[in-house]
């Protein structure tokens, strides 16, 4: 693969704590480049800083030091509302706990990012319906999250992440709450999206088997990247 990097991180650090408390630095001097269309698995023990790193990549959190360039733009200089717009247009989030709105049906959950993108109601519905069809959930459009299985909920969440044609999907332990078979289904979907639509995928997991779906593996330890290379070394 060649071309400019989609994500470039330089000297990134994240510190917590303020005032009297001693500061804790959870990320130290991170350097990383991700090109468009990559499928990256991020691994590491809990507390290794991988989730914090993901939050910064997804513009949900801001770094304490260093630079984060998304598509050549320094995300560090963006205002909260500009970050919101960036999240809306360029990122899709898939969480371990699905994070669907509890009292909202599948269709409206999928349509929600489109509402914040300023798209009209008719098109919101139509696009959300199409995405649910792609996920094999056409008949479940009007079900509430608690009427769906874990696998189905995660597929609704993936449909929601795809609603605005994101360039990057950030998945934080997406199979953590799923059984083996459902995990395989979900990972199959991710792989297909990556291969067929060229969506960049960044996946946090602690299961080697799940990481096996990716093409590149980044390993964190104590707030540093200790390994960066292909998943299946030739």
């Amino acid at each position, binding site marked *: 693969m060649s071309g400019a990097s989609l994500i470039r991180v330089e000297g990134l650090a994240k510190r917590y704590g303020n005032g009297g408390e001693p500061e804790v630095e959870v990320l130290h001097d991170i350097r990383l480049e991700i090109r468009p269309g990559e499928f990256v698995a991020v691994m590491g023990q809990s507390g290794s800083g991988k989730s914090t790193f993901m939050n910064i990549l997804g513009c949900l959190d801001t770094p304490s030091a260093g630079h984060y360039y998304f598509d050549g733009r320094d995300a560090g200089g963006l205002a909260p509302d500009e970050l919101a717009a960036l999240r809306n247009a360029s990122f899709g*989030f898939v969480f371990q706990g699905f994070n669907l709105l509890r009292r909202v049906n599948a269709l409206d959950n999928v349509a929600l990012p489109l509402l914040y993108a300023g798209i009209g109601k008719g098109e919101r519905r139509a696009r959300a319906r199409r995405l649910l069809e792609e996920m094999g959930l056409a008949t479940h459009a009007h079900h509430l999250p608690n009427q769906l299985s874990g696998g189905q909920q995660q597929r609704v969440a993936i449909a929601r992440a795809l609603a605005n044609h994101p360039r990057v999907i950030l998945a934080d332990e997406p199979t953590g709450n799923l059984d083996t078979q459902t995990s395989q289904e979900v990972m199959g979907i991710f792989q297909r999206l990556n291969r067929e639509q060229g969506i960049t995928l960044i996946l946090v997991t602690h299961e080697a088997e799940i990481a096996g779906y990716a093409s590149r593996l980044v390993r964190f330890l104590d707030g540093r990247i200790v390994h960066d290379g292909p998943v299946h070394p030739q």
Partner: protein
Amino acid sequence: MRLAAVPSESWRAMALNPLRTGLTMLGMVIGVAAVVAMLAIGQGAQAVVNQQIASMGSNLFLILPGAATSGGMRMGIGTALPLTAADAQAIGELPTVTASAPMTSGTAQLIHASNNWSTLVYGITPEFWAARDWKIDSGEMFSETDVRSAARVALIGRVVAENLFGNADPVGETMRIRNIPFTVVGVLAPKGQSLDGRDQDDTVHVPLTTAQRRLFGMQIPGAIRFIIAQSASLETMDTTEEEIKRLLRQRRRIPPGGEDDFTVRNLTATAEAAAISARAMSFMLGAIASVSLLVGGIGIMNIMLVSVTERTREIGVRMAIGARRRDILVQFLTEALTICILGGAIGAALGVGGAWLAAELADMQVVVTVAAILLSFGFAAAVGLFFGFYPAHKAARLRPVEALRYE
């Protein structure tokens, strides 16, 4: 498009929790209903006073013979030299006086056929009507000629007409006052109670001279009980009072430094005092009702704060998928505003209903004005904005990563 779509998110959230929404709204309903009802009752009281003021005539003075003072002892009204019709005439010639009517009065027994009735009989001149602005329902006013000739003619009030004549038309009929036959020439339009609570419809008016000579003989010829004088306008009231006092002191030969032996009473001032107290009552009622509106507003803030805390994770999710701070702010503000406006509408309807009920059951006069309804409505919206802003602002300022992590 985007901002227009966000409110529908708030309404969905409200519809999902109807009990909480309803209870929060109840605070607003009660507050607005109280304000509307209290304003209606307060304005009703003001309207009653204003009617009484209007029925009295405007810019009037009542001039009474005062207390004679003898050896430091004051003897009470009427003990001094009485006023006379000539005094009234002299007052009428003052530059700022538009009307001056001498009057006398006394109680008398009235008889017609087998009915009899006791009431107050006034001796007046036609000039009196100009000052009092009193209409005649049927028949007509007696004339100057009647006054000069001390004719036995009478104008009777509605209550007197009903008691003596029942449903029959009394005009042209004869009745007896103190056994002297009088012809009824007119029936007065109903005027209601005066400020001192006297029923103005339970009166009989006869020519002044007739009253003086035939009904209530006075020790001094030409003596009358009081004079009603009207000043040209509200602005000339003070001048008129001064002029009347100076004139009467001169006519009654009171030495400089001597105490007045007559009283000039400003009727408008009395009425204005009543109007001021009615306004004060109206304001008090409104203020008390406003407190309940304030309590309702605090209830909204309370519930909204709980709602924001409960939905922290949802806010995080919304932010992650692209909601801006403004979208979150608008969503929660819309929720608070909707509760207030809907509650305000229901409250206004209940308030109008409550005022109507008070009018029906307690026989109160109430005045419901559009302004009062709009006022309480605007107040409700302001309360919603004011108390909804802090929780909404709090929600909008959440950091996405922390909101998402919230359990």
